[in-house]
């Protein structure tokens, strides 16, 4: 009887080979409406970031922002592979995760402009946007600051047996923090339901991965923790979706954590003041040719999910939503100085 079942499953699902792993093509089984929503999210992030950049240029953003342009497929692909009530932890480059997890663009933009109506009532800003209601445990100003926080959330999931898992995002630079080692080891020895999703965008601020590591693949560190690990194309949304779906099932079933390295690239400087002397224009150009958004859009067109005209419509739709968010943010009031000491204690 079990044998028969296995055969049925094997027939039903198309299997893929990704980085030596047999992985189900879960994306193929997704409803078209979700595939379209994913495209819209990608555009929303892209346009949210370009509007944010304009605000920075115009001096309307007090402080700095770290833009996610070029890396959209990693956040969206991974977060759509999680369940709605799973947790995520994010990074200082967190706008993408936040949008993918379902945050409201208007409240995000209001936060960036330091307004009372923002997610953190103007207290947090770009680096600290959290939306606990959607399971987003927050961006983090400290590199790697969320790796152990994520493991802690996974401990909650395990203790409460709530069947939730954690998608813990961090960058290549964070993989050299001491807490990376501590958290991955704990997750491994306690079989925590967490996916460590390393966004390898090739630079920790200015330091190239080739100089910060003496290994070719960050996912090779899986060996130290006896956990599953994989390196994938982070600019290929479908590959990200399928891989994260696969390991989400794996970790949700109680098999312990996995380390997923997504290769991607940050198109913009590290933050607002970055002359980018540490990389070449050619390198940037070569990565811009791997733009994750048209790649995904074209995949939807070629599979017949949408037409080229639909693609344009979805893009326009995303832009329209963003314009509304901008109007909301700009017309919102600033917080009152009298509120400065509120919220220090719960």
């Amino acid at each position, binding site marked *: 009887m079990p044998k028969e079942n296995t055969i049925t499953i094997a027939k039903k699902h198309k299997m893929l080979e990704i980085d030596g792993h047999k992985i189900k093509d879960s994306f193929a089984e997704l409803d078209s409406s979700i595939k379209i929503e994913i495209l819209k999210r990608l555009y929303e992030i892209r346009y949210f970031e370009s509007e944010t950049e304009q605000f920075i240029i115009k001096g309307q*953003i*007090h*402080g*700095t922002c770290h833009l996610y342009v070029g890396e959209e497929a990693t956040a969206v692909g991974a977060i759509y592979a999680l369940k709605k009530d799973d947790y995520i932890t994010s990074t200082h480059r967190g706008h993408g995760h936040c949008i993918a997890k379902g945050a409201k663009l208007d409240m995000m933009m209001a*936060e960036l402009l*330091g*307004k009372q109506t923002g997610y*953190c009532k*103007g*207290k*947090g*800003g*770009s*680096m*600290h946007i959290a939306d606990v209601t959607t399971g987003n445990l927050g961006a*983090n*100003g*400290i*590199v*790697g*600051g969320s790796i152990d926080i994520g493991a802690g959330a996974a401990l909650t999931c395990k203790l409460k047996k709530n069947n939730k898992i954690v998608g813990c995002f961090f960058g290549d*630079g*964070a993989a*050299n*923090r*001491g807490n990376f080692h501590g958290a991955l080891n704990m997750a491994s020895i306690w079989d925590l339901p967490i996916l460590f999703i390393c966004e390898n965008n090739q630079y*920790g*601020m*200015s*330091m190239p991965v080739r*100089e*910060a*590591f003496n290994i070719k693949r960050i996912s090779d560190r899986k060996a130290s923790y006896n956990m599953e690990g994989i390196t994938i194309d982070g600019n290929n949304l479908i590959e990200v979706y399928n891989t994260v779906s696969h390991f989400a099932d794996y970790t949700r079933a109680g098999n312990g954590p996995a380390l997923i390295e997504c290769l991607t690239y940050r198109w913009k400087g590290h933050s607002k003041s*970055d002359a980018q*002397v*540490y990389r070449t224009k050619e390198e940037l150009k070569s990565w811009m040719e791997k733009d994750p958004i048209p790649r995904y859009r074209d995949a939807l067109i070629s599979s017949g999910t949408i037409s080229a005209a639909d693609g344009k419509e979805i893009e326009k739709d995303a832009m329209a939503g963003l314009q509304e968010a901008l109007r909301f943010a700009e017309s919102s009031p*600033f*917080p*009152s*100085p*009298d*509120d*400065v*000491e509120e*919220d*220090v204690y719960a």
Partner: protein
Amino acid sequence: MTVSIQKEIKTREITYLEAIRETMQQVMRNDSNVFLIGEDVAEYGGAFGVSVGMLEEFGKERVINSPISEDALIGVAAGSAVTGMRPIVEIMFSDFITIAMDEIANQAAKMRYMFGGKAKVPMVLRAAGGGGTGAAAQHSQSLEALVAHIPGLKVVMPSCPYDAKGLLVSAIKDDNPVIFIEHKLLYKNKKYIENVPEELYEIPLGSADIKREGKDITVVATSYMVKKSLEVAEKLSKENGIDCEVVDPRTLRPLDIGLITASVKKTGRLLCVEEACGFGGFMGEVSAQVAEQAFDWLDAPPLRVSGKNCPVPYSLVLENAMIPSHDRIREGILKCLGKI
């Protein structure tokens, strides 16, 4: 106090950032044991551009990019210091020293004492502190009290280019771990450029400075708050005829309490100004020591103007409310003088 500079000493106007950079360059030319290590200090030139050009002059062996591992970075510096090198560590935001508190507080600070005085840990940990840049809760703190509390650490907070150079020379020459906290708003501030000698010179750690002489009240302030206090003092002098004496401790540890109490004995009043949160802050220490040593000379209780009791908020409106403003310093002075 303006420092009198002899005519033969060549000076030119430079920024705070330039003073720090040229000090590192000059010291590194003279002493091959000194090297700079930190995140993005090489090609990038440091998060605030302090080390721009140093990689080109000294090469990768002496201007070392560190992976993002503040704990290991500071531990490695301590290990190299105890074995004969004189590392300068750059921690881009002083907030990140919390990541390495074991290496700072349990290791570097204690080695000399624990080993019966037989070890030396000559390292300088430079870090950019303070707010006012919209960098929010994890990139804007003033954490000097955390380190000033630990015996074995020296803590320096220069408020101007001249002091930055002289104090950094002393910090590098010192055989103890020195936490050297720079202020982001001073780095490139053209308003505060001043004449700095080209040659190296030392300002001893533990020597405070009277930045403005006055007779009515002593205002003790650190780092960027020295600048704000001086501006308030000038205005009060012109508009209200109040004559403030502004004292900059320059080094929190060792603390030149002698100069501070001497000033209080002259004026009879003390206002302490710090950007950090007041509770458990450094100025509580200053107030306590003044109360212990100059109580009979005080005509009013010592007062403090400090950061509000909250993390540094993001929104400009809130950040301005959290960090002591010119108005709050002015009110503090008037209150201390019994005028409001």
